[in-house]
């Protein structure tokens, strides 16, 4: 099983005695222990040198380079669509589009032009930003990158991308809509994490809890949802346990009952991100842990099920494997986990534009290639497409001799694009998709830096592809 294999491999990695000793020394002196000239310092020094040489020769686009390195303007589509959300203005500044996906640069400013306070973000625990194509979501997959503030902290930039895996139509001519729920502050909760996990005694429910005439399996069946709602209604009418310092009236442990085969079930009313009081939004309440206060023994929930209709929903956590009965309730505690956002604006916005052709070059190829990526591969490449976001090679035949994990990654072939001026852009990882019936497919690679962080490709500068020692002209 993947989980067991991953745990085994990860367990082989440890801090080590020296690393632990350095931390203990740091704690003792309450300051960092000097650890010699680190790799980060070396990288910084080398990058400064490189920047000195190249900075005058390249035109930069504000924003993108902070996320993905040098960004030639030719690959960027100017969008400039704005919308007001509360005290803020969100602007979809620019997009980079190709046939297989897109990336977006968004900027958030205060309407009054002032300095941003806290860490305004489009993504929180309950708030989310996403992109749709012609009203459909998701489009393959999407990702985002940590926001970056301008030096004067009057603008914060967000970068997100989306990619199709194949099957979907090209983005060209499609209406793309970036939408977000509002703005949250992600810098408020670190010292108040306790508020997202509350532990309360179940003693107040000892008199109302009861065993129901349904097994664990029956409780989880959708056909019994109405019966479960009625049971919870009867129990919660007698007593509930208030939760959350933010909104104790709405956050509650509503009921505890036991299945006929002995599983404890703890019910929390489900906030479903709808409780907005003052500045705070809480959601996704779920009972996660039962504790026997006499022994300290704990049980994690095994499954959680939502029941009821909007406005009257519950979240039911089942603790199968926990041997405690309702007689133990006076000594039991439940930990409820919920997520909370500090809301800066609760006004959703949508920003739409029509994607153009995208900036990419395509060419026919007739090349047999060989490379190693966790094993030896050979392929017949029939075409290439180069955009700022990726290089895609199409093939009509690919064979892999097997998986060679022992020599990975030492034997992996180095892929790179060679620019006309001789500089190179590293490429990683080769993601391969092949149609099992036809044998055709594609190898997709993204530009990366020495840390495998995403970098953009300049299609106008590319001269050739290097696959190990093999050079393939890309004209």
């Amino acid at each position, binding site marked *: 099983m*993947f989980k067991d294999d*991953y745990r085994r*491999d990860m367990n*082989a*990695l440890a801090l080590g005695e020296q*690393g*632990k000793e*350095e*931390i*203990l020394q*740091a*704690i003792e002196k*309450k300051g*960092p222990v000097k*650890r010699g000239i680190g*790799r*980060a310092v070396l990288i*910084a020094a*080398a*990058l400064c040198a*490189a*920047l000195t040489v*190249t900075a005058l020769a390249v035109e930069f686009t504000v924003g993108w*380079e*902070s996320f993905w*390195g040098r960004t030639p303007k030719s690959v960027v589509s100017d969008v400039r669509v704005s919308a007001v959300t509360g005290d803020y203005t969100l602007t979809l500044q620019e997009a980079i589009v190709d046939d297989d996906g897109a990336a977006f640069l968004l900027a958030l400013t205060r309407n009054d032009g002032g300095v941003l306070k806290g860490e305004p973000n489009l*993504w*929180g*625990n309950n*708030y*989310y930003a996403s992109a749709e194509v012609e009203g459909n979501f998701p489009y393959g*997959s999407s*990702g*985002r*990158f*940590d926001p970056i503030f301008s030096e004067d902290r009057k603008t914060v930039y967000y970068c997100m991308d989306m990619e199709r895996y194949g099957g979907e139509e090209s983005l060209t001519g499609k209406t793309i809509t970036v939408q977000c729920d509002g703005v949250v502050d*992600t810098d408020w*909760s*670190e010292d108040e*994490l*306790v508020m*997202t*996990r509350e*532990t309360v005694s179940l003693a107040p429910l000892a008199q109302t809890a009861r065993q129901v005439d349904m097994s664990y399996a029956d409780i989880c069946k959708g056909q019994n949802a109405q019966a479960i709602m009625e049971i919870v209604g009867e129990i919660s009418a007698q007593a509930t346990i208030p939760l959350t310092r933010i909104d104790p009236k709405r956050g509650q442990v509503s009921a505890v009952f036991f299945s006929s085969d002995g599983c404890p079930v703890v019910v929390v009313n489900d906030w479903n991100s709808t409780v907005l009081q003052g500045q705070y939004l809480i959601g*996704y309440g*779920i009972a*996660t842990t039962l504790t026997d206060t006499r022994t300290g023994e704990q049980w994690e929930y095994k499954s959680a099920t939502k029941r009821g209709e909007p406005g009257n929903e519950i979240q039911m956590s089942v603790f199968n494997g926990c041997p405690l009965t309702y007689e133990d309730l006076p000594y039991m505690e439940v930990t409820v*986990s919920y997520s909370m956002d500090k809301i800066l604006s609760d006004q959703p916005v949508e920003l739409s534009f029509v994607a153009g052709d995208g900036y990419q070059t395509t060419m026919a190829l007739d090349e047999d290639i060989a490379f190693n990526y*966790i094993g030896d591969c050979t392929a017949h490449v029939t075409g290439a497409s180069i955009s700022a976001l990726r290089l895609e090679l199409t093939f009509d035949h690919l064979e892999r001799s097997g*998986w060679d994990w*022992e020599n*990975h*990654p*030492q034997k992996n072939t180095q892929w790179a694009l060679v620019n006309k001026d001789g*500089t*190179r*852009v*590293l490429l990683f990882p080769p993601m391969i*998709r092949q149609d099992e019936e036809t044998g055709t497919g594609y190898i997709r690679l993204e530009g990366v830096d*020495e840390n495998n962080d995403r970098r953009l490709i300049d299609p106008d500068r590319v001269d050739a592809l290097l696959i190990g020692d093999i050079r393939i002209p890309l004209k």
Partner: protein
Amino acid sequence: MDKHEATRLVEEYGDTVFRLAYAKTGNRHDAEDVTQEVFLRLLRKAPEHFDSGDHAKHWLLRVTLQRANDLFRARARRQELPLEAAEELRAPEREELGETLAAVMALPKELRVPIHLYYYEGLSIAQTAQIMGKSEGAVKTRLSRARGKLRELLMKGEEELV
């Protein structure tokens, strides 16, 4: 927090923090840097007492991701390098990784963290989302994307990764 309690937490959670930092940064040196910073922050900013071991662990996991993000942010302004220069900057030592861990480390870093929290730490989607400061939808999306890529890398079936 006093030094004795912080020292105890280093013993108990030092490797937990280091492994998440490794999953995020992809190399031992950065992971050790992040681990040291996390425990210094624990000394300065943590609550006097945690409610439980889980609370302490979740606090440490969350701060680990924040410190690792700071490390990346500090390096964000990068420019293109000649390949030779980039190769000189590669980590001098390579960790001997098992094949499954190597496959995970081949993923983009934004996909490695949810994989680690979900499969190694055994957290639920909701807990993973809380630690990462993301929505559950975002975590599900990333796990789905990571599983897709791992299936390719490891040639595993759907049921073996879900």
